């Protein structure tokens, strides 16, 4: 039963992003500013930091692949970036003190890196013509705000769960 807890959490986070954009109250704010929930990336980063690097990368690979196939239909973009970000995060955590605030801060940095990376790819393949200023003020900042709020409310319980799972996995 306990073994299924991490995959279940992964599915929950995967579905939560789509639910979040679909059920968010559709105000002017929603139509004007584009914010993307990056809860899945935050989940993968937390798994990398609090469970193990291998777990983070494997989950990144699987969830990234699912994300590409199900949501964006442009294969490879997230499949490539999620494991890579998990790898870099694991390497970066060696330099920092392992503390919740540090992890949250790192998550915010990686969320913006992912935004820039996806923006670059979208520009490159010609799916968007959004100028940089517009991207910066109408997309990047709202996205960071939404994800910061998410971290504010959910980072502590998420950490507690993952630490428990890690302890269980070590005992195995």
């Amino acid at each position, binding site marked *: 039963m306990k073994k299924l807890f991490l995959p279940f959490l992964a599915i929950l986070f995967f579905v939560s992003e789509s639910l979040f*954009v679909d059920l968010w109250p559709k105000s002017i704010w929603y139509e004007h500013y584009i914010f993307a929930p990056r809860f899945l990336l935050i989940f993968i980063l937390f798994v990398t930091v609090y469970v193990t690097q291998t777990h983070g990368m494997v989950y990144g690979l699987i969830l990234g692949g699912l994300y590409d196939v199900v949501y964006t239909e442009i294969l490879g973009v997230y499949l490539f970036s999620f494991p890579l970000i998990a790898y870099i995060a694991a390497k970066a955590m060696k330099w920092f003190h392992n503390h919740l605030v540090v992890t949250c801060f790192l998550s915010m940095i990686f969320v913006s890196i992912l935004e820039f990376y996806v923006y670059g790819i979208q520009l490159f393949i010609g799916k968007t013509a959004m100028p940089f200023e517009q991207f910066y003020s109408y997309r990047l900042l709202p996205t960071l705000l939404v994800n910061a709020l998410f971290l504010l409310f959910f980072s502590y319980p998420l950490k507690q769960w993952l630490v428990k799972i890690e302890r269980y996995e070590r005992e195995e």
Partner: protein
Amino acid sequence: MPQFFLNKRLILLLVSIIFLVALIGFSLKERKELTWSEQFVKDTTGFVQFLFHQPAQLVAGFFENVQDIKNTYKENKLLKARLEEYVMLEAEVQTLKKENEELRAVLDKKESLRDFIPIEATVIGRNPDRWQETVIINKGEQQGVKKDMAVITPSGLIGKIQHASQFTSTVQLLSALDRQNRISAYVQGQEGSVFGLIEGYDDKRQALLFKQIPFDAKIEKKQLVLTSGLGGIFPKGLPIGEVEEVVPDEYGLTKMAYVKPAANFYDVDDVIVVKRKIDAVQEEETK
């Protein structure tokens, strides 16, 4: 596994970059159909999404209802005023419908571009990265959904089917229209209709671009824009929106109009996939 990454990580990185470029290239190709593995993954996750989406929708719906109750009195007043108009319109529609049928019978013309078979579907997901506005619905090829079919809500056209897998399909919303995808449309005017093409979407104005209008055509604000059915896939007469502003085109040879969409692209819960009756008849004949 970590040992493996340490030794050959640079090579692995380069190989995966090549792999990434190849995959992106593969998925950007104009594909008629998704591969079976993609379809399988989509259908499976579609089922999981459906399980999560229903209860979440209920909860969200409750809060929306509370909001609605606040506006009830105002809306009720307005609706009462319009009710009388409605009765008159209804009577007119009935007589027109009957007349149309009779005339069709005289001409012995059974199918029209207007008729369609509705396939009702529920939205079970939305693209969270929001670069392309797409939604996922819970009907697929098994229920008769095919690529490029029109998708509407009661208020108007919202998009078309981008890819259909067996039990789910992806809808590309009009706000994500790319340049290759055009919709043949016309404006309902006083002196006959004016034809043109819907090409693209203006993010800032939140309006569709209605292009290729002849320069001497008379178009005014508030006129209705409908699908013409000439593009070969959509039925005729689905409302798209109303004209907001008319401006000369870049080259000054034709005119362009900004069209305010009739349907709300953001608040989409239940949709109808539209299958043209003419196509259905032809399919049966070829069988």
